[in-house]
């Protein structure tokens, strides 16, 4: 039994979600290899080789993989797939884009976004926006799986000494090409990696009012998130969205401000350790999952909170 984990990176840095995915691979058992697909990404391969418990790093370094487009990346993974019983990737927009394509190329039914490894062929995963948890057993020869990062504690990024082996490009496709990217730059921690998240909803009323949250975020070293309603209203960019169809977070502290607590939002944050809700409606469903609820007008509460920190 051996597992291949697809590393997520931006050609310079290894993304933390890879370390959580490796923890799921360790829970499955057997040897664990990492595959780096990218361009001029030797630094990433070196970082991977140092990760605790990784036996071997496969490196496909070619200009064709600069943007890790789904067609070429899936074809490349397929070319090395025969050696593995399990192929895992983080359930991020990267993993969600590439892995189902691979899965169909291998004629395998993927298991999406697992939150627990029961045994080498049986896994738990949330369905219906986390309203239910399904246990599923795979009868496919190769198990193709995406992993919910927040459900697994990351492995250590040091202590390993894996060998790095080059992989020749295979099945490079010109069906799609990269045009451009608008990547949000922020000094705050990344939403999915932050230990404190403060999110605003429709109750914030405008994008400008998000500075009330940002002031607090900066005092706490927190990331800022949002409900779908706040993103749809244009208050903040799409990558702030927490929920069933946005990002899944599970920080030590989640503060929901002016968010009603729709099931689709709860799906993205209800595994946080401590939840605080600030809402002027005492019947808002968010209070049902909150450890500490404050019924208040956010425009009074936020400045006061900032002063108290």
């Amino acid at each position, binding site marked *: 039994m051996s597992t291949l984990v697809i590393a997520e990176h931006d050609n310079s840095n290894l993304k933390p979600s890879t370390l959580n995915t490796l923890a799921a691979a360790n829970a499955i058992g057997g040897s664990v290899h990492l595959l780096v697909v990218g361009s001029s990404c030797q630094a990433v391969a070196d970082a991977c080789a140092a990760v605790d418990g990784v036996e071997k790093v496969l490196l496909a370094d070619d200009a064709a993989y600069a943007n890790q*487009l*789904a*067609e070429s990346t*899936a074809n490349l993974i397929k070319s090395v797939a025969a050696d593995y019983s399990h192929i895992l990737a983080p359930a991020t*927009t990267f993993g*969600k*884009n*590439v892995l*189902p*394509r691979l899965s*169909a190329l291998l*004629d395998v*039914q*993927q298991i*999406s*976004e697992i939150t627990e490894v029961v045994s080498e062929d049986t896994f738990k995963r*949330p*369905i*219906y*926006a986390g*309203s*239910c*948890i*399904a*246990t*599923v*057993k*795979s*009868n496919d020869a190769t198990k193709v799986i995406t992993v919910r990062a927040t459900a697994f504690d990351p492995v250590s990024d040091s202590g390993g000494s894996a060998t790095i082996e080059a992989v020749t490009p295979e099945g490079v496709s*010109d*069906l*799609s*090409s990269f*045009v451009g*990217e*608008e990547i949000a730059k922020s000094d705050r921690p990344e939403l*999915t990696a932050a230990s404190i998240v403060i999110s605003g909803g429709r109750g914030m009323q405008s994008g400008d009012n998000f500075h009330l949250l940002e002031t607090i975020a900066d005092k*706490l070293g927190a990331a800022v998130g949002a409900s779908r309603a706040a993103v*749809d209203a244009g208050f903040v*960019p*799409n*990558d702030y969205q927490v929920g069933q*169809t946005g990002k899944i977070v599970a920080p030590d*502290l989640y503060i929901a401000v002016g968010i009603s607590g729709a*099931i689709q939002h709860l799906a993205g944050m209800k595994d946080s350790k*401590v*939840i*605080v809700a600030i809402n002027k409606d005492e019947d808002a469903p968010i*209070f049902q*999952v909150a*450890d*500490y*609820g*404050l*019924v*208040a007008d956010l425009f009074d*509460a936020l400045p*006061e*909170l900032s002063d*108290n920190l």
Partner: protein
Amino acid sequence: MKIVVPIKRVVDYNVKVRPLSDQSDVDLNNVKMSMNPFCEIAIEEAVRLKEAGTATEVIAVTVGTSASQEQLRTALALGADRAILIETESSLEPLAISKALAKVIEKEAPQLIILGKQAIDGDNNQTGQMLAALLNYSQATFASEISIEGDSASVTREIDGGLQTIKVSLPAIVTTDLRLNEPRYASLPNIMKAKKKEMDIQPVDSLGIDTAPRLELISVEPPATRAEGIKVESVEELVSKLKNEAKVIS
């Protein structure tokens, strides 16, 4: 240009789904069913491309039970020209659904196939990408903007760090994200007109594909419940609790 839009009948997004008491599956008895919200966005985008003169025909297709005719009629009322039901009594997995859809697409030969990014029942987020692999077509998932430019399409995608734009050659598979558009409601005259539009029904067995399940559903449980929380009276009390009781801030 022809556009095919695969849609799925799912539990309405307002329904809170629970496991059956024997935990063998989810309890879908007497719950409201609707078109998957991301599929509504897919239909809307296709209809807008037709209204803009870019597309000539919009075909809605679903793989499902006879009851899915209801959602196909909704698609027709929203502006699709005709509908195809690949009928099956079993609930198929995304791989099998993709195989069935691939057969329909080989026959219809559309230039664009728009799917939802995710069905809100299984939360799989697989079918579009699998379909693209089976057909060896280009793929653009999680689209928030689509523009057709000759024999290719430029698609802006919602990714974790922000937005990415890629160019895909046609025929292409696109999956919709929430901000692609705001779907319209079907008007009463259009609902009436939809009743007369063509709906082709074929059994899945006639496609000659392997639909055997690969996964076994062992059990369905409710999620872990959280301990009941408290209401605090003031911001001061909140900060004190977070510092001294929960110890999550210092």
